[in-house]
């Protein structure tokens, strides 16, 4: 049995026109230490699925288990990174992280909690902004605090819901690299599930990519292995012929999957992938 097992999960919400089936018959599994991205377009399906995985939301049917145990609430060894940072504005960066550390390790002394929080904030380059409030930090810095908060509790599983989508392209690239560093520094591989709408981000970070259709009745497609060597960089993905080929393959399989579901949105990525392929050859 895989570390994360999702069997037949469906979810609908009441709406003005009766019920809206958001997720339908989701099958999904992640091995321990794996980094899996769920890629899909806009729409509520991905976040709903993430909320079910993290235990914030109950599914209508089906089961979710992490580490062999059924998910009934928030997993004690899970960390969640939200799209909108979700820092508490009345606390400094340090206090935001320490709150998480204190909740995960209530027996630690205050000093030890502060040291742990400081260490992880320094890792993401915020050693100089420990006592700043979120309102005094840029978007990239806020998400760094959120990532430090997620890693400071030394989670077994990391759930990220579009963690970089609110950031500009440059900040985004830096933070992706920092995430890779943090994952490799963690000592053991942290099982990570990331939701994203950015294919390059998924290629850069994941072992497998799982496509998701849009609601209503969103479901997951067959996973696509990303057979690229690590460490990966953004420029490798752009210029390395095998990387470009894999990218095109992923794009085509995504498009295929989405097209069978009668979606048109995949047209743009196909074009851009072909252009990249031509350039490389």
């Amino acid at each position: 049995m895989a570390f994360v097992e999702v069997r037949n999960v469906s979810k609908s919400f009441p709406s003005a026109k009766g019920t809206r089936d958001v997720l339908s018959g989701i099958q999904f599994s992640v091995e321990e230490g794996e980094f899996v991205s769920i890629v899909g377009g806009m729409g509520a399906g991905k976040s709903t699925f993430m909320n079910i995985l993290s235990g914030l939301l109950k599914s209508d049917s089906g089961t979710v288990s992490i580490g062999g145990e059924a998910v009934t609430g928030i997993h004690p060894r899970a960390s969640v990174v939200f799209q909108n940072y979700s820092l508490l504005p009345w606390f400094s960066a340090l206090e935001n992280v320490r709150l998480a550390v204190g909740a995960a390790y209530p027996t630690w002394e205050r000093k030890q909690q502060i040291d742990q929080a400081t260490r992880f904030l320094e890792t993401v380059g915020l050693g100089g902004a420990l006592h700043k409030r979120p309102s005094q930090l840029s978007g990239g810095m806020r998400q760094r605090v959120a990532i430090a908060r997620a890693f400071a509790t030394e989670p077994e599983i990391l759930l990220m819901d579009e963690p970089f989508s609110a950031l500009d392209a440059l900040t985004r690239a830096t933070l992706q690299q920092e995430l890779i560093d943090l994952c490799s520094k963690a000592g053991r591989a942290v099982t990570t599930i990331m939701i994203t709408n950015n294919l390059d981000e998924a290629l850069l970070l994941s072992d497998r990519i799982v496509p998701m259709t849009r609601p209503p009745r969103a479901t997951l497609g067959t996973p696509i292995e990303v057979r690229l060597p690590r460490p990966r960089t953004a420029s490798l993905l752009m210029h390395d012929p095998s990387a470009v080929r894999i990218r095109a393959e992923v794009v085509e399989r995504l498009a295929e999957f989405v097209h069978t579901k009668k979606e048109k949105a995949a047209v743009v990525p196909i074009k851009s992938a072909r252009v990249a392929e031509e350039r490389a050859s």
Partner: protein
Amino acid sequence: MNDRLARIALPIVGILAVVALWAFMSTRVPDLPSPMKTWQESKLFIMEPLVKRGEMDQGIGLLAYQSLIRVAKGFLLGALIATPLGFLLGLSKAFNRMFDPVIQVLRPISPLAWLPLGLVVFQKSEPAALFTIALCSMWPTVINTMAGVKAIPQEYWNVAKVLRLTGFQTFTKVLLPATLPHMFTGYRLSLGIAWLVIVASEMLTGTPGIGGFLWQEYNSSIYAHILLCILTIGIVGFLLDRMMGFVEVRLRSI
């Protein structure tokens, strides 16, 4: 330069206009003391604000102080009931449904209606006055605290859940800081009402304070002192509001 001049000069012009109207009215209404007469008869109370000559015959500062203490007690009593009540109403839908109609009915009741009930229940004027102040002033705190709790974004609740905070931690680290600015808006409005109620309750119970003094001077036909009291009540109320407003702005900027 012009702007700064206008900011100082225009309020002065406004005040002078009202004083002029007052002076004019006093020439028409036989018993209305003129501003000059009011000043002459009140000079002693203003120049020696903290002197006590008799039970009611005290400096205006001392009278205002006694009223302020009474207001503070009544306001605190009200806030002590109103704040937890506001949290419960904001957190529990069932509780809200149960008590919202009751609150909507109790809210518009005048202090003049509560005071006799207080006198019947407590038999003494002081607790009856506190009871009235507390009961009349608590509603803005109840309603604003409730609205503040309801306005907490879902993402903060999610953070509390995801970090697996205990109930107590969720209260002190998320719920309370998120609601604090709303609570203080409620406190500011409540304090304003408490100050309004003090005069009515002191007049009816005859206790020493700015309202009691006002009523006694009316009965002794010293009308200038009525105006002195009115002005004092207005200025003290204004200062109280400014003070709470200052705290409120500081809290909102977080």
